[in-house]
C-alpha cells in the first residue's frame, strides 16, 4: 500500500515539474494608464469616509419530524420548528491608500418550538418554545497592494439554557500572481451550559444557600420553599478552540479549487443535561459523555464554469473525531444561468456517518458503561438533502429597486434513514 501511494505521489510530481503553462510576465502591466478625458491618471481615488458596502437579510423556516428524541432516551417525537432571521451590515473605508478597513455587524434572532422539550418534565409540562439571540462583530483590514488581510471578530449567543462568548483572529495572504490565497483563523468559544435536568433526575439534596431551600423545575424556574431571593441555576463550562486553514487556487480561466481543514478541541461539559438514557434494567439517567473531544474535518471545493451558462459547484468533506465518528459529505450543485442575471440551482447532498462508541439506542446501554448517550446525532446513519434555489440579480436592481441588488430563495428537503425528515425554505436579500 505504501508503494502505491509513493508511486502516485512520484508520478504526480513528475507531471507537476513539466506542467507550467505560460508564465511570461505581462508586458502590458508596466504601461501607464491613460485617461482619455484628461491627462495621465497617476493616482487612484480611495474613499476615506465610512460607507455602507452591503446589507444582507436572511430568513429561514425549518420544520422537522422524527421518532428518536434524545430528551426521552432515543424514542419519542422529534417535531421541531425554527424561524431564523439574520441581518449583516458591512461598512468600509480607506484609512490609507490601498488599505481597506471593513466593519461587519451581525444580528441573528431564532425562535424555535420543540415538542420533545415538553418532556424535560416527566409529566410533559415543560415549555416547548425558546428564542436565541446572537450578535457578532468583525473588523478586517486589507492591504490591497500586498494582498494580505488581518482581522478580529467577536460573537455572543444567548438562549435560556446556553450562553456563548466567542472571539477570533484571522489572516490571509494572496500569492504573488494573485491566483491563490492562503487563509487562517483561530477561534475560541467560551460557553456555559445551564444545568436543567429532567424533573425526575434533579439532585434531591438542596443547593447550598444562605436562606431557605428551593427546587429547580425542569423548565428552569426556581421555586422557593420560603422567603428570600432565588439564586441562579448552576452552569457548567464548555470551551471550544478551533484552528481553520484554507488554500484556494485558480487553476485556469474556468476552474478554481479550495482546500479546507479545521483542528477542533473541545473541553468541559459536552453533553446536554436534559437528555435521558435508559439502561437495560429500565432505569434512566442523564446522558454522560467525555469531557474532551478532538475533531478533524477536511474539505475540498471545486467550481467549474462549463460552457457559457452552467456552473458546477462541488464539495467534499471527510470528518473524524476521537469519539469514534467518521463521516463523509458530498455535495453537488448545478447552476444554470437562464440569463446573466437569473439563475436556477438544483442541488444534492449525501452524508453518511458511523456511530460514536458512546451511542446506543433506547434500553441498550449497560448501567456499568462509563459513558452513554442515546442522542441519534451520534448514531450510524445516512442522509440526503436535495432541493432547488433561484437567484435574481439584475443590474438595475430587483423589480427596478436599485438598492435591492440581489434576491435569492432556496428550498431543501432533508431525510435520514433513521426516519428523521425536515424541510427548510430560506430567503436572502442583498442591499447595496
Amino acid at each position: 500500500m505504501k508503494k502505491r501511494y509513493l508511486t502516485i505521489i512520484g508520478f504526480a510530481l513528475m507531471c507537476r515539474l513539466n506542467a507550467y503553462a505560460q508564465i511570461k510576465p505581462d508586458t502590458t502591466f508596466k504601461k501607464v494608464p491613460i485617461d482619455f478625458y484628461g491627462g495621465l491618471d497617476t493616482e487612484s481615488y480611495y474613499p476615506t469616509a465610512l460607507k455602507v458596502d452591503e446589507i444582507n437579510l436572511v430568513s429561514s423556516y425549518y420544520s422537522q419530524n422524527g421518532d428518536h428524541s434524545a430528551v426521552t432516551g432515543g424514542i419519542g417525537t422529534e417535531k421541531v420548528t425554527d424561524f431564523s432571521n439574520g441581518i449583516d451590515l458591512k461598512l468600509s473605508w480607506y484609512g490609507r491608500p490601498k488599505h481597506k478597513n471593513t466593519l461587519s455587524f451581525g444580528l441573528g434572532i431564532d425562535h424555535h418550538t420543540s415538542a420533545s422539550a415538553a418532556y424535560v418534565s416527566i409529566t410533559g409540562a415543560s415549555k416547548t418554545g425558546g428564542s436565541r439571540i446572537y450578535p457578532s462583530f468583525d473588523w478586517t483590514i486589507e492591504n490591497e497592494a500586498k494582498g494580505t488581510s488581518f482581522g478580529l471578530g467577536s460573537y455572543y449567543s444567548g438562549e435560556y439554557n446556553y450562553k456563548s462568548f466567542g472571539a477570533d483572529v484571522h489572516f490571509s495572504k494572496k500569492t504573488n500572481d494573485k491566483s491563490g490565497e492562503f487563509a487562517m483563523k483561530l477561534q475560541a468559544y467560551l460557553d456555559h451550559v445551564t444545568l436543567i435536568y429532567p424533573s425526575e433526575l434533579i439532585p434531591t439534596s438542596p443547593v447550598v444557600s444562605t436562606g431557605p431551600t428551593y427546587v429547580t423545575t425542569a423548565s428552569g424556574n426556581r421555586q422557593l420553599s420560603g422567603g428570600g431571593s432565588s439564586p441562579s441555576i448552576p452552569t457548567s463550562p464548555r470551551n471550544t478552540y478551533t484552528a481553520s486553514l484554507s488554500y484556494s487556487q485558480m487553476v485556469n480561466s474556468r476552474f478554481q479549487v479550495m482546500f479546507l481543514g479545521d483542528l477542533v478541541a473541545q473541553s468541559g461539559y459536552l453533553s446536554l443535561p436534559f437528555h435521558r438514557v435508559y439502561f437495560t434494567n429500565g432505569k434512566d439517567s442523564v446522558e454522560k459523555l467525555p469531557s474532551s473531544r478532538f475533531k478533524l474535518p477536511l474539505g475540498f471545493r471545486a467550481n467549474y464554469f462549463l460552457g457559457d451558462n452552467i456552473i458546477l459547484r462541488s464539495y467534499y468533506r471527510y470528518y473524524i473525531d476521537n469519539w469514534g465518528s467518521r463521516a463523509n459529505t458530498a455535495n453537488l450543485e448545478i447552476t444554470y444561468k437562464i440569463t446573466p442575471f437569473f439563475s436556477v440551482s438544483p442541488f444534492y447532498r449525501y452524508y453518511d456517518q458511523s456511530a460514536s462508541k458512546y451511542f446506543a439506542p433506547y434500553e441498550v446501554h449497560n448501567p456499568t458503561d462509563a459513558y452513554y448517550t442515546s442522542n441519534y446525532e451520534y448514531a450510524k446513519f445516512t442522509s440526503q438533502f436535495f432541493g432547488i434555489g433561484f437567484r435574481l440579480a439584475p443590474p438595475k436592481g430587483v423589480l427596478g429597486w436599485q438598492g435591492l441588488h440581489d434576491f435569492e430563495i432556496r428550498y431543501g428537503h432533508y431525510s435520514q434513514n433513521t426516519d428523521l425528515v425536515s424541510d427548510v425554505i430560506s430567503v436572502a436579500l442583498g442591499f447595496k
Partner: protein
Amino acid sequence: MTNQIVKITACCIAVMSFCSCVHLHEYQKTRLNDSEMALSNRKVEKNELNFQSYRESASGANAGKTGGGCGCN
C-alpha cells in the same frame, strides 16, 4: 486514524499536482469572478449549515460551525 489521514493527504497532493495552474490576466478572470463561482457557501445556506450541525455529528471545514457557540455539538 493516522493511515486514513496519510491517504487523504496523498490524494490531495496528487489532485493538486495533476493540475497545471496557468498565469491569468485580469481580463481572463471574468468567469472566475462570477458571483456564482465563489468558493464559499451562499448567504442563503447559512441556516442550513446550522441545522445540519445540530442533526449530524460532523461539522466544520465549510466556514460554518465547528462546535461551540450554541447548544449543539
